[in-house]
């Protein structure tokens, strides 16, 4: 007989919650949720969910190469995702061509990541962290780069909010009105790459959807107005990260599982209870 492990509340959960590594996890998780919720809104409007999925996979060999070389994972990831974003922006906007090119590179990148992780001897645990995230291991230097990323992302959105919307919903008209749709797409994909770099470290390559796509999709079920939707999206992601960390301290289970569960649950509830005209 296999004995099923029982899940119980840890007695020292309050102590865990107030520990240093938890504070780091809260800060890193919230920074990421804010960036992901905001960028995610545009990901939905621009129909680039696949691009965000692909960038996470493209970051995978970056992370494993960093482990191999002993350099910070954030550095390896951000290098690969930003280069990937630039490449995607340059291959243009024709949806089919783009998706095929992206998908092919995605598969290659994942294979490369596997190779690197095999060469690295200490890889096993680390690779699992890259695939599923490890918020509890957030370091101070990671937090510093996260803060810089968030600043750049917020700055971009503050400046380009309207043109990003306009090129998403009326690209041809936007071009006729003098906007450089290609350049805006490049800027957007680079900020998406920064966001993905953070999100992978929170929920992992395989689950970035939960932070990038699910919160804004849920928000858009609840409100049609763009700014409220954007802030609601940020709120949902932040709530999921905080809730996930608290539950992980309570039950001694990985926060990733709870974060993903919370965003999924909220999305299901919103789908069921959404107003008629949503």
């Amino acid at each position, binding site marked *: 007989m296999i004995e099923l492990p029982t899940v119980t509340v840890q007695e020292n959960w309050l102590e865990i919650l107030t520990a240093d590594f938890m504070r780091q996890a809260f800060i890193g998780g919230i920074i990421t949720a804010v960036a992901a919720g905001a960028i995610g809104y545009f990901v*939905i409007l621009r129909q680039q969910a696949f691009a965000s999925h692909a960038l996470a996979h493209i970051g995978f060999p970056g992370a494993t190469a960093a482990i191999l070389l002993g350099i910070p994972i954030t550095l390896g990831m951000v290098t690969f995702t930003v280069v990937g974003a630039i490449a995607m922006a340059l291959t243009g906007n024709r949806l089919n061509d783009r998706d095929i090119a992206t998908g092919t590179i995605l598969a290659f990148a994942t294979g490369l990541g596997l190779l690197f992780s095999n060469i690295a001897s200490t890889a096993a645990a680390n690779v699992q962290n890259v695939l599923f995230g490890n918020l509890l291991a957030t370091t101070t230097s990671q937090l510093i780069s996260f803060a810089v990323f968030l600043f750049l992302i917020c700055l971009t959105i503050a400046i*380009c909010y*309207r*043109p990003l919307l*306009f090129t998403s919903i*009326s690209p041809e008209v936007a071009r*006729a*009105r003098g*906007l450089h749709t290609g350049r805006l797409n490049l800027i957007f994909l680079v900020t998406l790459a920064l966001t993905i770099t953070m999100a992978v470290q929170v929920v992992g390559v395989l689950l970035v959807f939960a932070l990038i796509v699910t919160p804004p999709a849920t928000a858009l079920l609840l409100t*049609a107005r763009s700014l409220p939707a954007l802030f609601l999206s940020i709120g949902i992601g932040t709530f999921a990260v905080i809730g996930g960390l608290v539950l992980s301290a309570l039950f001694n289970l990985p926060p990733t599982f709870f974060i993903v569960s919370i965003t999924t649950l909220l999305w299901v509830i919103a789908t069921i209870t959404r107003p008629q005209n949503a």
Partner: protein
Amino acid sequence: MTSSAAATIALTDVAARRGNTTIWDQGSFDIPQPSITAVIGPNGSGKSTLLHLLLGLLEPYSGTVEVFGSEPREASEQLGFVPQSYHVPGSDYLTVLEYVRLGKIGNQFFWRSPKGMDQQVADAIEAVGLAGYERRRLRHLSGGEQQRAAIAQSLMNQPKTLLMDEPFASLDVRHQQRLAELIHGLRMDHSIGSLVVVHDLNPILPYLDGVIYLLDGHAHYAPTSEAVDEDLLTHLYGCPVQVTRTAQGDIFTRVTGHAP
């Protein structure tokens, strides 16, 4: 070339190229605005290319294009544009109000909002007959209503002329008529001209001032009375066309046979 009377859309010996192919050339005309002009020609004859030239999205291979006396790129705020594929999936999520508003502020960075914008949005929505739909999402609009939203959006920069690419293509007969009336109304009530790519002249014929026709690789312009001509239309479409004038003064065109 001088253009002292600037209220025109003028081409002087323009050739349009895509890649290494000349799509059409010898385009010379001067169309006073506001007026209602149809653009006709077979598929692939370069109708959308003409709109792109006027919008400054494409440089003429030779010749000059002047829109209200300026280079097209400098005149882009004087033209409204309703592309053929005006409906983009991302717009599904927006409300009519926000979608239309972006026609004014969508190409502006930062957050400043021009004065009187709310009133202007309301006027544009009213002008296309979508009052009461402001808070609806685009995905809950019919095709014809989405098109009206796109027209309202294009009105937001207070253009002097609207360029519309095959706006009649996906409309039923009643909605074709309503669109023609809207185009006419914009001309009469707001002095906004329209340059409209069409395949069938009939819906817009009652209001039409002139026709640009792309024939045998050349671009021509003629006032409606000359352009609506059996020989010309038969040549243009490659199959017999009859022009009928009723006692009431209505004109319509009809295909009467098969392509040879």
